[in-house]
């Protein structure tokens, strides 16, 4: 697979309207092939006919449950999957993720969020290089190459800076807390790395901001975290 949009998506849900909405949105976003199934039997048939690259599964299905279906299909092929369910209990979410699903999204959901999560799953599962570029004012960052171009100069981003920038770009326009950034870089045991985070952000600013001492895009929200401002 060259590109995430080449992925074949299998969408299983018992609500025809929801199938129509989500498959429509997926096609609109650029996914070429979206198979839909309204139940377990249909899903099995679809799976046998055309092996999908990613599955989006509902849990309450008329002829079975999504958890069992997931286990059954996973035995045949290791295909990434995302649960999309109205069941919001922690127990269900943890059970689904515990089975090995890549993500769990509860209804009602923002289709935009579903698309972003699906992209993430595909990129991770098939190790696709990110073609994504992030525009920060006059600076262009190519995430795939970890390169920031500013005023004709190209600076290489370190792995930490790239992770930070990716996290901030994923939440562009929104505050990302110190804790969330530290966790993205250092994992769960991040306590005590807050000062190191400041240092990495300063280095990142030197590469993407015109005036690193007076940042216009990568701004500090005092006491909370950082925000990558949206492009005007």
């Amino acid at each position: 697979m060259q590109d995430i949009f080449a992925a074949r998506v299998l969408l299983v849900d018992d609500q025809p309207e929801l199938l129509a909405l989500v498959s429509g949105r997926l096609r609109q976003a650029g996914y070429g092939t979206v198979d839909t199934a309204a139940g377990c039997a249909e899903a099995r048939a679809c799976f046998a006919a055309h092996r999908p690259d990613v599955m989006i599964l509902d849990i309450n299905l008329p002829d079975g449950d999504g958890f069992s279906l997931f286990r059954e299909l996973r035995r045949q092929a290791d295909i990434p999957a995302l649960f999309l369910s109205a069941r919001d209990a922690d127990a269900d979410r943890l059970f689904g993720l515990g089975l090995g699903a890549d993500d769990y999204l509860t209804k009602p959901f923002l289709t935009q969020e579903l698309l972003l999560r699906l992209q993430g799953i595909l990129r991770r599962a098939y190790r696709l290089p990110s073609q994504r570029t992030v525009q920060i004012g006059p600076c262009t960052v190519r995430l795939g190459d970890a390169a920031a171009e500013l005023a004709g100069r190209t600076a290489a981003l370190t792995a930490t800076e790239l992770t930070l920038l990716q996290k901030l770009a994923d939440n562009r326009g929104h505050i990302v807390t110190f804790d969330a950034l530290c966790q993205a870089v250092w994992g769960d045991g991040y306590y005590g790395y807050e000062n190191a985070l400041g240092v990495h952000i300063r280095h990142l600013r030197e590469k993407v901001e015109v005036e690193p001492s007076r940042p216009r895009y990568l701004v500090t929200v005092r006491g909370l975290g950082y925000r990558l401002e949206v492009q005007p």
Partner: protein
Amino acid sequence: MKSLCKLAARCLLAAVGVALSLVIVLLSVLVGVGLHEAQNYPYSHYQVGEVAQALRRTGSGFALDAAHTPEEWLDGYEWAMQLDEQGSVIWRLGLPAGLNRDYTVGEVAGFSRWYLDGYPVFVWRNDYGLMVLAKAKGSIWRYSYYSTPDAVWVAVRSAVQAAAFVLAAALLVCGLLLWRLWRSLRSIGEGLDALAQGQPVTVQAEGILSELAQTLDCTGELLRRQNEALARRDAARTNWVAGVSHDIRTPLALIVGYAERLEPDETARKIRMQAQKIKALVEDLNLTSKLQYNAQPLRLAEVQAGALLRQAAADFCNSELPANTRLVFSLDEKAGQALLHADAALLARALENLLQNAARHNAEGCTVTLAANCNGGHLVITVSDDGTGYPPAVLTALQTGETGENTPHILGLHLVEQIVAAHGGQTAFSRNQPHGAKAVLTLPLA
């Protein structure tokens, strides 16, 4: 158990008290009867010794002291005689003729111990020999006792030992009876304890307490059935709420999805935002019913208060807020590093409800403050604003916890109270100075 021990001790004391009282009463009766009977004892005004000492030698022989008449001296006696050292009668008063003779040593020895011609007689030595006084025939029985000093000691010792043995036996029997009673009482006490803690009750007691035990068993069974019925009803209610909220989610997903497709149209955005509000309401409803009926187990873990509060503040700032809404975030260093033993998702929900409540009820904008500090073993989180504040009816309902017909619907804030209470903390809602709403959450630190 402590009260049972006290009861047993009291029973024992009561038994001892009753026994002692009985002994005292018996002794009193005995003494009384003895005193009464003593009055019926053959009456004599003067003792033998007094009469014997009252004999005086006169010119013509002997006579009793003139202070009293001879009849007064002999009041209560049949007759009297004075024997000399040889056994001859030297003075007599009312002596039957047959007895007016000389007495041999053997006769004197005999009657001094037993009877003289059927008369019980008493003797007393005086200056002139032996005074003999006789009572009426058949008025007195005479006995003779002998004992060695050892025998007396043995008797006394045996009496003491017997008394001790009897006392010990009585105490043992008393103790055994008490022990049996105590055992029955203990099982009933345990049954009551179990009942108080809502555990199933089976009490086994014998004898007089068996009926009590049966009643207790019946009560326990009744309570158990009632609790079961209540639990079933709670579960049914929770399941019903969960089912409804589940069923609402799919149509809501469609509303959000289609509205999203029409954006950036302003109307579509409003539809989506309202749909998301319904989503939050449904989630609150589901959570509140689960918390109320204990159907939501807390997923407790160590939570860094700073991270939790920063995330809540960031989520609030990142959400779509009315224009002119501002957040002031203040966290003292200790509170930032404090650790809570908490369900992070639930606490985040409580903070979100408080912050969003402030924004939602002040459409023209306000300054919301999220502050936290450590106080003793507690983390104190304050969410306040300078907006319109809680309406009086809402504040009353929040502060008194009263639910009546006209109670305003405060689902979101009620959920905050429930979540904080589930973490062993307290929530206080009040008016902020000079105006606005203020909620203070006090949570125990890990």
